[in-house]
């Protein structure tokens, strides 16, 4: 496990030193929230039903974008091979990478929540909402980290990854939007959305850890 911790510490050092990764994700997220608010004229209309959808589409796109960037850098400079050659199982590298991606994306998402609270002055930073955001992020980051090993020449990769990941994330998208809506006080519906979100997070994390060695082989 200590090697997963080593990978995690190194990734955080990297993210801190080379801020371009998650900063571009934050910029992307902020811009898409603004685009949504202009498009849906969120400022005036009753935005409560729309907000969860806006938040989660922004989270998913910026998250998948940032995760694939972080992997792209590693494979280009050969440092991914340097880790694969170490006497550790690829799954521990996956766990290390997963946690560091998770932390940097949670920072982006919390920053976005603060921004949205200010823009639309709705209290977003409630305990329940942060929990939903956390579990949902674990769910999609573990899948995005697994799929980001997609090697493809040129720019096709940046487009291909969302096309590949989003249909798989449909259950997470529906569950997270509903759960966020409930957290914002939308009329409570009977379905246990948070439970489904937790199951999805477990499913994609365990699946990711088991299947990562397969996709990291050359």
């Amino acid at each position, binding site marked *: 496990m200590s090697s997963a911790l080593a990978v995690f510490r*190194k990734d955080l050092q990297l993210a801190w030193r080379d801020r371009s990764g998650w900063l571009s994700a934050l910029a992307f997220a902020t811009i898409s929230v603004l685009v949504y608010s202009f498009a849906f004229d969120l400022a005036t209309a009753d935005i409560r039903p729309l907000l969860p959808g806006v938040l989660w589409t922004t989270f998913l796109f910026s998250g998948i974008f940032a995760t694939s960037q972080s992997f792209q850098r590693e494979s280009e400079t050969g440092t991914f*091979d340097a880790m694969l050659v*170490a006497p550790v199982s690829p799954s521990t590298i996956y766990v290390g990478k997963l946690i560091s991606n998770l932390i940097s994306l949670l920072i982006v998402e919390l920053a976005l929540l603060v921004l949205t609270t200010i823009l639309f002055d709705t209290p977003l930073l409630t305990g329940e909402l942060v929990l939903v955001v956390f579990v949902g992020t674990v769910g999609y980051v573990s899948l995005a980290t697994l799929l980001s090993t997609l090697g493809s020449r040129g720019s096709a990769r940046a487009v291909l990854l969302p096309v590949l990941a989003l249909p798989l994330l449909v259950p997470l998208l529906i569950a997270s939007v509903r759960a966020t809506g409930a957290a914002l006080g939308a009329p409570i519906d009977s379905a246990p959305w948070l439970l489904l979100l937790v199951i999805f997070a477990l499913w994609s994390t365990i699946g990711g850890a088991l299947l990562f060695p397969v996709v990291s*082989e050359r």
Partner: protein
Amino acid sequence: MTTAVPAIAAFDLTKRYGGIAVVSNISFSLRAGSKIALLGHNGAGKSTLLGLLSTLITRTSGDASIAGHAISTNPIELRRNIGVLAHLPMVYEELSPLENLEFFARLYEVPEAATRIEELLRAVGLWRRRREPTSILSRGYHQRLALARAVLHRPAVLLLDEPETGLDPAGIALLDQLALDNPAVTVLAATHLVDRVDRWADGVLRLDRGCVVEAPDPVTAEVSS
């Protein structure tokens, strides 16, 4: 007389990309402590063979073992005994040389890492600039840092892919000191500087189109596989 376990051994090792066997049925065994030059034209399969032995590339068939550990059954233990130097520098540009080695020392769980890192950084001449980001260093220093990383955990076997690239004469002297003349280490190094070979190598493994055309005599004792 204990049976001498070959440091590096391959048994009909094959790697096929579609119709082409880039490495086909390669067998050889190298004595511990020997320094072998891996020669052959471009595309003869040198890098692929080194990739197979370092478990970076998955084999199509056959097997290989390093320090008694087989790539098919015990890859993690095998990797504990190898140091790898490849074409790409394999170091983090944004981290400083010190941080790079600290990360790999944690990954390899190197005992008393601090002293080992300092010793290596001084040896490769990076101690004064250990805190600067690696990106501003020259290609030669990248290679030196990669060399330091390869020998950081004192591996018994070194798999080097054209280690001389980017090194100035002083750098090459370092390469000799740390790897090629180090008696305790077995080295299999692909190189293009053929004239240097007879200075450091005590055997040649030559490949042509994925097959062995010249190999050092196999390890005399029974190969324990």
